[in-house]
């Protein structure tokens, strides 16, 4: 019943990914170069118009997909790495380790995370690396909390105790017995992290904190703010693409979440 979400999300995201990979082939112009008169409304040769400097908007949008997807994917992977490690150790070992890690996670969850990202990026000077790093540092807590709670319930399951009584080490119990069973909901939340990271990157570059060597959607919208009342195409089209990207990922994540829920519910017995 919910598989249409996965289908629609996957197709949409697939198209955007192809666009990002094949950007130099697809884009009609160099996105950073002046290729026409400034502030041209959409017409036949500049399909989505040009910006204040005369750069082609469509080409910028096609290339901008690269930054969004790279930052989204890499930050989500890093944050999943941090979150799974912290959550698994806290949930499996419990006790003082757990309490310390929970405090640590809570700290990162309650701090005004976007302000922290702004601070980090501003101080480190904006670049693809500093942006990805800063986003990874703030978005992992939900993953850690989820993994921890999955581990807390799964570790008391009898199959985990059975594995221990068969003589498996803590490491292989965590990695081979518990983690695979915790993955479906983690996958759903982890894919939502991609969306969060993409939105955060766009907001940062909207505020001007963007890698100066690459075009990004947020930056296109942000830099067009002084003229956006007259040149609506400068903010509407890149925003639309950003919206569709995030929507496709959210659809995928929801579809995955619905798929993972029944089996877990059924076995937890609630």
């Amino acid at each position: 019943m919910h598989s249409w979400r996965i289908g629609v999300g996957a197709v949409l995201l697939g198209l955007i990914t192809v666009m990002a990979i094949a950007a130099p082939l697809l884009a009609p112009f160099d996105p950073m170069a002046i290729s026409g008169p400034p502030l041209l409304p959409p017409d036949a040769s500049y399909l989505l118009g040009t910006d204040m400097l005369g750069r082609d908007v469509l080409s910028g949008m096609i290339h901008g997909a690269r930054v969004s997807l790279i930052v989204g994917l890499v930050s989500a992977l890093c944050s999943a790495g941090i979150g799974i490690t912290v959550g698994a150790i806290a949930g499996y070992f419990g006790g003082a380790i757990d309490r310390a890690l929970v405090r640590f996670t809570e700290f990162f969850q309650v701090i005004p995370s976007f302000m922290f990202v702004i601070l980090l990026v501003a101080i480190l000077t904006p670049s693809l690396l500093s942006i990805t790093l800063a986003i990874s540092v703030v978005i992992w807590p939900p993953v850690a909390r989820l993994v921890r709670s999955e581990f807390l319930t799964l570790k008391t399951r009898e199959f985990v105790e059975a594995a221990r009584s068969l003589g498996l080490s803590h490491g292989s119990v965590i990695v081979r017995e518990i983690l695979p069973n915790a993955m479906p909901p983690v996958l759903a939340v982890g894919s939502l992290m991609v969306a969060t990271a993409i939105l955060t990157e766009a907001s940062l570059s909207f505020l001007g904190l963007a890698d100066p060597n690459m075009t990004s959607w947020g930056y296109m919208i942000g830099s067009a703010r002084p003229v956006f009342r007259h040149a609506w195409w400068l903010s509407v089209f890149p925003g639309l693409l950003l919206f569709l990207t995030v929507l496709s990922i959210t659809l995928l994540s929801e579809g995955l979440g619905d798929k993972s829920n029944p089996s877990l519910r059924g076995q937890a017995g609630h």
Partner: protein
Amino acid sequence: MRFVYAFAAWLPRALLVLVAIGLLNFFLIRLAPGDPASVLAGETGASDARYIEEIRKSYGLDQPLWLQAATYLRNLATFDLGVSYRMQRDVADIIGERIPATLLLTSTALVLAIIIGTLLGIQAARRAGTWQDTVISAFAMLCYATPVFWVGLLLVLLLSVHAGILPPFGMSGLIPKSGFAAVLDALHHLVLPVMTLALFYFAVYVRLGRSATVEVLGRDFVRSARAKGLSERQVLRRHVLRNSVIPVVTMAGLQVGQLLGGAVIVESVFAWPGIGRLAFDALMQRDYNLILGIFFVSSIMVVLANLITDLAVRSIDPRVGRS
């Protein structure tokens, strides 16, 4: 008595968080390339040796690192957030002036998002699987995926530039008003920023309210309530509602920090005179001391909000803090 315990349990944790934030700030300054003194001076002081010297003295920058950290924390403890060398004023004073505007914006947005979102989420859960559920859930998903700054700009284009019904920026009109007219004027200006900021959180609470209610509706005590002869409406009002509100309140507490981040975007789009807009301006001018101060003050607001949610959860759920 439980609330006194709650406060006593909260206080050491809150202080711990604030000390950690203070240390974080302290090390962030040292993360920046270049001399900390000129970083704190917003990189303008480089030309003015007197400022740099002043900063060096007040932050004890000639002392060992741990003493510097201690000095920094002691200053924070007395609410001395230093001076904005750009604006030539105390950071604490600048921020203090801006807090009311941000509180007005964020609390209005959060309250609206929670009430409307949760109610719609509960409605979707009651009608799970029907067209109502589909419409509500789909709308929430669209809101969830919409970038805040983009929707802000679109709303300005549609509702102020084209339709001309709402003011696009600021907190008051060009002609100063007084009394009731001033309140109305502020409310008029509040509509667009609040709509923009609330949209994302609205989506969050629809989803949360829905999933919490679906979960509670499946619990055994709901069946017992039906077996007592309660109508579906009574079951919902007397037994389901309070139970499904608990995760909503908990989430609200966790989101205050995020909400302040959202305020940076919304306030800079709508030129709303709060600390978010201040953070944006400080960012543009590389006034690091001011940004650090805003980060610290925001953290205090978050910590206070956590106390409020903790008390709220305790007043709903008798189990918390007892068993």
